[in-house]
């Protein structure tokens, strides 16, 4: 047979599971960096305030929450200074929702390129993930600066501070995984886009973004904590403000769910990519 000759590469048939070529992804690292750069630059080109928008966005959102939920509706914040309470929720939530909203269009928005040039398709959602990680990471730093300005920081559990980047990362990974799953199906059924946008908005209200978890009635507590974002946001606040004990079990389950969604989404994406490109 052909075993005598060595081939450098092979193109096999459609629909294969477990076909993530990490070495290849690494070979394209220059492109990944370039895509991230492009994404960061292009979102703020032709704007007057430019990169400052990265900082303005969470501040405006926090002020809005402060006005509506803090002053008008008067939702308790569990003893945490309201500005910091809303901002912590907003930053983690937006990393999740930005990655979800970004990656779900991976195929639809790049169809013309995917149809003409080959490069590992996963680079597109990954580049979006890193772009948002950088952008929202800057917002996270802003949060810490403001925390000390507003006199917070006295309650920080320093040994657990290392968990903060991990929590932040997992909120993004959750959005990334869900977005990837959606992207595999929106290419074929556009209805899904509308549905998902609606569901994401609803999802925010079952996540402790603008209210603390203690507000939920005991009957729904278990269900509520099964949402991976609940332990992520609550633990984030607990480490900084010690307003409530860390719900370790829920956090472990949450991390496991996020990892599962993340891995399954990668497999699904790889398995579906050829079919999707054939169909868009």
């Amino acid at each position, binding site marked *: 047979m052909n075993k005598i000759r060595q081939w450098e590469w*092979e*193109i096999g048939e459609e629909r294969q599971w477990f076909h993530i070529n990490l070495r290849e992804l690494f070979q394209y690292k220059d492109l990944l960096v370039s895509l991230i750069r*492009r994404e960061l630059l292009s979102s703020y080109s032709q704007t007057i305030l430019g990169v400052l928008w990265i900082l303005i966005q969470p501040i405006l959102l926090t002020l809005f929450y402060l006005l509506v939920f803090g002053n008008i509706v008067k939702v308790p914040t569990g003893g945490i200074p309201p500005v910091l309470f809303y901002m912590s929720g907003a930053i983690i939530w937006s990393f999740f929702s930005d990655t979800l909203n970004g990656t779900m269009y991976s195929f639809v928005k790049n169809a013309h*390129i995917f149809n*003409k040039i*080959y490069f590992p398709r996963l680079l597109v959602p990954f580049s979006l993930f890193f772009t948002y990680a950088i952008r929202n990471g800057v917002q996270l730093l802003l949060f810490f600066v403001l925390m000390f300005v507003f006199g917070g920081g006295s309650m920080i559990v320093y040994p657990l501070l290392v968990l903060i980047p991990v929590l932040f990362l997992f909120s993004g990974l959750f959005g990334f995984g869900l977005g990837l799953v959606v992207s595999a199906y929106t290419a074929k059924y556009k209805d899904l886009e509308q549905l998902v946008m609606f569901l994401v908005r609803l999802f925010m209200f079952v996540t402790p973004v603008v209210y603390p978890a203690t507000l939920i009635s005991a009957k729904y507590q278990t269900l509520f904590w099964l949402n991976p974002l609940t332990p992520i946001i609550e633990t984030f606040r607990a480490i900084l403000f010690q307003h409530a004990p860390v719900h370790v079990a829920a956090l472990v389950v949450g991390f496991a769910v996020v990892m599962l969604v993340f891995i399954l989404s990668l497999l699904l994406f790889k398995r579906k990519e050829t079919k999707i490109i054939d169909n868009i």
Partner: protein
Amino acid sequence: MTETALKVENISKRYQIGVYNATSLKYDMEKALRSKIKANAAEQEANHIWALKDVSFEIEKGEVVGIIGKNGSGKSTLLKIISRITKPTTGLIKGNGKISSLLEVGTGFQPELTGRENIYLNGLILGMKKKQIAGVFDEIVAFSGVEKFLDTPVKKYSSGMYVRLAFAVAAHLTSETLIIDEALSVGDAAFQEKCMAKMKDISSQEGKTVIVVSHHLGAVRSMCKRALWLKEGLVVSDGKADEVISTYMKEEKFIYLAQEYHTADSAPGNDLIRIKQTKVESRFEDEHNTISTETPFSIKLSFWNLHQAELSTTIRIHDISGTCVLESCSESFCYSPGIVEGSFEIPGGYLKPGCYYVSFDFITNNIEKTYSFEVCLTFDIREKGQKSYWRENRQGFIRPQAPFILNRFNDPINVAV
């Protein structure tokens, strides 16, 4: 020793056709629920087409291979599979060396970014490393001729500059195998020639393997030694380019007896002229639209003249082997913008039987070739009259009705037998 660059083994590709709606959703869901859907075979076949059927071939390193065939014959699907954009439904492709494909000029260009940034981004998308791009950066810039505008966003480029830059990036790819689809017909005639020369360079001097898909039979003929003819997803013929193209043109008799474009925007051409119509006008003999050797016919051309310019047009008629049988040129004249029509009359009994193709060249100011409309018409001339071996197989390029008359004189024969 020759080395194989690419080995295609029995690849087939099936596409789903039709629209996605509630029915296809139901079908997908049923399929997901039951592990094996028992839809009847006929229904399943009706929803799918086979774009490629059991295609196999090998390409040696350094070969330049043209792939020809009608629209829908599977050419593009084959290129997409080789360039990894999609995967075959069944079959396997193996290869050595990196493959890059240029299926469209300028894909992945970002209008907001500058020429310099786009060279890098496009190079990276096409599979180069940053270092490699830096190495050929100056060459790319020199080839494209856009030095002055390197730091201008490409959205401000003219379409010509845009295409030149895009082609320049692609032409300097460092990969061992290059796949090109219809990308040759870009820019003005001068740049087209530069592209062709570069392509030939790539294959001959740099020893790269090149696979070209084109409708442009003239280009395939001049670039490739070998051609593959695809028809309805099957490889019909694989061999020397000249021979394959000849059989292709003969067998696909259909070919262009007329081409017409309704708007100047979508018509082939350049900034000066756009082709409106080319047509062979005659009395055709049979359902194959052949012209008898005795029938006179005319070749019509009309085009949009976009700018006031001194213009003349050359018509060339080539036979199937590519030899130019005749060339004729119109008077040079300064036409105002509008539609210009022309006609070239060929008397009956002039060309010998066979298949011919027509090309037009547009020349400005009597010196500069601005545009070539290559192989835009083909026609077939058949023998008319008595069947005699010597009549049908006469040599020479043309067969004018200049009679060769023999007379017998009543002189005594003085030859000793």
